[in-house]
C-alpha cells in the first residue's frame, strides 16, 4: 500500500494502548461471502436478483425489449442505420442529461437546461456570422457556463430553491433567446462550421471504430486488473481474475458489435466520440476525485456535508455551472442536428426528456445516488422509442404521445419494482 506521505501523516490515529484490543475483527462474521467457482456466482446472482441489487440491468433489459418489440412491429428496426440515427440524435439531449445527473445528485433540479441550450445555440448562431467559428463556439458554451453560474449563485447564496431559480431561467432565457435571434427566426449553420460537423462528421475509416473499441476494452481490463492487484496487495477483498475476464468479455462483445454496426453505415460518428469522452471524464470526476465525493456528500445530507467542512455553496454553484456548460454543448448538438440555431431550439419537450433520461437511467431524484452512465442508458431508451414510433407511421400523433408516456412509465416501473425489492431488502 503506498500513499502520499503527507496524507499519511494527517490520518494519524493514536495507537491502542493494549495491542490485544485490536483483536476483534472489523468484519462481521454474518456477512455472507460468495462461494468459489461458478456455483458461487450463480448463487450470488440469484440472491442479487431476489434482493434487487441489479444496478442497470432493468434498463438494459428494457432497451432490449424495446428493440425486439419495434423489430417485430416494423421489420427493420434493428439496423445499422437506426443505430446511427439514434446515436446522432441522442448525443445532444444525452450530454444535457449528464448535466442533469450532476444536479440530481445534489437532490436539486435544473428546469432551465433546455432554455440554456437554446440560448447558447442562438448566441453561437448570431456570433458565428461575424466571428471565427471557434470563438463563436467558445462564447456560446461560455454563455451556458455563465447562466449556470447565475442559477448556482442565486440558489446557493440567496437560498432561492433551485426549482424556482431554474424555472425563472426557463422562462427568462427562452425570452432572451428570442431577443438574441432578433428578426431572424432561424440562422442556418454556416458552411464549414464545426457545429455542422458535430453530427455530420464520421471517422469513416473502418479502423477508427474498431480501434476505439479495442482501446476501450483494453483500458477497462487494465484498470480493473490494476485495482484488483492493489487491493490484493493491501489484503482487501478484491475481484478474482475470472470475474474481471468475464466483465471485460461482455464489454468487448457489446462494443465490438456496436463498432461493426457503425462501420456498416458511415463509420464512427464524431458525436458519439464526444459524448463518450464527456461521459468518461464526468464519471472519473464523480467517482475518483475529491470534488465528486463532495458532490455525493452534499446530495446525501447538506448539514452533514457542511459540518465535514465542505464548501456547500461552491459545490452547488459549480454543479450548476457544469449543468449550464453541458446544456450549452447539448444546444450546439441540437443546432447541428437540425441545421442551425432557431427560436424554438431547446424548447418543447426537450427539458422533460433530459430529466426523464437521467431518471430512467437510475439516478435518484432525491440526491446522492446515481451515475453519469444513466444519462447514456436513459437517452438510448427514449431515443429508441422516438425512432421506433416515427417508423411506425401511426395514423395520429396523439397516439404517439400516449405511447411515449406509456413506454416511459413501463421502463421506470420495471426499474422501480426491482428497486422496491431492494428496499425491502434494506439496501435502498
Amino acid at each position: 500500500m503506498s500513499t502520499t506521505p503527507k496524507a499519511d501523516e494527517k490520518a494519524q490515529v493514536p495507537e491502542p494502548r493494549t495491542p490485544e484490543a485490536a483483536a476483534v475483527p472489523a468484519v462481521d462474521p454474518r456477512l455472507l461471502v460468495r462461494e468459489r467457482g461458478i456455483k458461487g456466482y450463480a448463487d450470488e446472482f440469484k440472491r442479487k436478483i431476489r434482493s434487487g441489487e441489479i444496478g442497470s440491468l432493468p434498463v438494459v433489459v428494457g432497451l432490449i425489449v424495446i428493440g425486439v418489440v419495434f423489430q417485430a412491429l416494423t421489420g427493420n428496426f434493428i439496423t445499422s442505420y437506426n443505430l446511427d440515427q439514434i446515436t446522432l440524435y441522442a448525443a445532444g439531449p444525452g450530454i444535457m442529461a449528464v448535466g442533469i445527473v450532476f444536479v440530481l445528485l445534489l437532490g436539486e433540479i435544473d428546469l432551465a437546461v433546455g432554455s440554456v441550450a437554446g440560448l447558447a445555440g442562438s448566441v453561437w448562431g448570431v456570433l458565428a456570422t461575424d466571428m471565427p467559428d471557434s470563438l463563436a463556439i467558445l462564447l456560446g458554451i461560455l454563455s451556458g457556463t455563465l447562466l449556470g453560474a447565475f442559477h448556482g449563485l442565486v440558489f446557493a447564496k440567496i437560498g432561492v430553491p433551485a426549482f424556482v431559480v431554474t424555472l425563472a431561467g426557463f422562462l427568462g432565457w427562452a425570452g432572451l433567446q428570442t431577443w438574441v435571434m432578433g428578426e431572424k427566426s432561424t440562422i442556418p449553420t454556416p458552411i464549414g462550421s464545426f457545429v455542422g460537423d458535430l453530427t455530420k462528421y464520421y471517422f469513416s475509416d473502418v479502423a477508427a471504430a474498431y480501434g476505439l473499441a479495442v482501446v476501450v476494452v483494453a483500458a477497462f481490463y487494465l484498470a480493473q486488473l490494476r485495482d484488483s492487484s492493489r487491493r490484493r496487495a493491501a489484503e482487501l477483498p478484491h475481484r478474482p481474475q475470472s470475474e474481471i475476464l468475464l466483465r471485460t468479455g461482455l464489454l468487448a462483445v457489446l462494443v465490438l458489435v456496436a463498432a461493426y454496426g457503425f462501420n456498416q453505415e458511415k463509420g464512427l460518428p464524431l458525436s458519439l466520440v464526444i459524448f463518450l469522452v464527456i461521459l468518461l471524464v464526468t464519471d472519473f470526476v464523480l467517482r475518483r476525485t475529491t470534488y465528486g465525493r463532495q458532490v455525493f456528500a452534499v446530495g446525501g445530507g447538506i448539514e452533514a456535508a457542511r459540518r465535514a467542512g465542505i464548501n456547500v455553496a461552491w459545490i452547488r454553484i459549480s454543479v450548476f455551472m457544469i449543468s449550464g456548460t453541458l446544456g450549452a454543448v447539448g444546444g450546439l448538438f441540437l443546432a447541428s442536428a437540425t441545421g442551425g440555431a432557431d427560436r424554438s431550439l431547446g424548447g418543447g419537450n426537450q427539458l422533460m426528456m433530459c430529466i426523464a433520461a437521467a431518471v430512467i437511467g437510475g439516478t435518484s431524484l432525491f440526491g446522492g445516488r446515481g451515475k453519469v452512465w444513466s444519462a447514456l442508458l436513459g437517452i438510448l431508451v427514449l431515443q429508441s422509442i422516438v425512432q421506433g414510433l416515427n417508423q411506425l407511421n401511426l395514423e395520429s400523433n396523439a397516439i404517439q404521445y400516449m405511447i411515449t408516456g406509456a413506454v416511459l412509465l413501463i421502463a421506470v416501473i420495471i426499474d422501480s419494482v426491482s428497486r422496491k425489492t431492494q428496499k425491502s431488502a434494506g439496501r435502498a
Partner: protein
Amino acid sequence: MSQTPVLALRGIFKRFGAVQVLSGVDLEVHAGEVVALVGDNGAGKSTLVKTIAGVHPIDEGVIEWEGRPVSVSRPQDSQHLGVATVYQDLALCDNLDVVANLFLGRELKKGGVLDEVAMEKRAKDLLSTLSIRIPSVRIPVAALSGGQRQVVAIARALVGDPKIVILDEPTAALGVEQTAQVLDLVERLREQGLGVILISHNMADVKAVADTVAVLRLGRNNGTFPVATTTHEEIIAAITGATDNAVTRRKARTAEAAQ
C-alpha cells in the same frame, strides 16, 4: 497543564427565535485536560459545542484560541483551528459508505486521484481499534446500527490532527465493550496532550476520565468542579438545581425497598 487555555469561551450568548438558549456561558479547556460538560436535557450543551464547531454563529461573546480571540462562523474555521467534533446527532452522510464518511473532507489521494485502497485499509484499522464489528466498510452508513454509526462518527474525529476533540455524548449508543474502548481513547488523547470536551449524562464515565466538570443549567454556568474532590451527589445537585430530585428520591425508594 499549560497556563493559557487552548480554547476559552467568554460570555457566550445564543438565541433561537423566542428561546434564549445560552446566556453568558464561560468555558476553558487546556492542553492535556479532559473537561466534562454536563447538564440537564435541554441545558444547552449541544448548542454550546455547536457554536465552537462553527455550526451556529454566536450572538455575543468571545471565542479565544490559544489566548487570541478568533471568529468561528463556519465549520471550516473551527477545523482549521484544530477542533474535531463528534456531534450528538452524528452528522454522517447516509448515502456514503463507511470509508467515504470517515475520510469526508480529508480524503487520501494519490496523484490527485482518490486512493480508495489506502482509505479502506486505514478505515479497517481505525474501526478495529474501537472494537466494533461492521458487516462491510463498503455499505452505506444508513444500514448501520445505532452504535455502529456512533463509532464511525467517533473514528471520523481521529482522522486528521486535532488539538481539541469535542465528544457530544459519544457513548450514548455504545455497548459496554465499545464504551470502555472510547474511555481508553479519551485517556490516550489526554496523554498525547490534546484537550477534550466530553459531554455525557453518565456520571460514572465522567468521574472515570474527566479532570474537570463544568455544569450547565438552563443555559448558564452552574459551577466548575475538579473531579478528584467532588462527589457524585454534588454534581447531580448542580445539574438538577436541587438536592431533592428524582434521582435521590428514586435512590431513597430503592434503598427502602431493599431493606
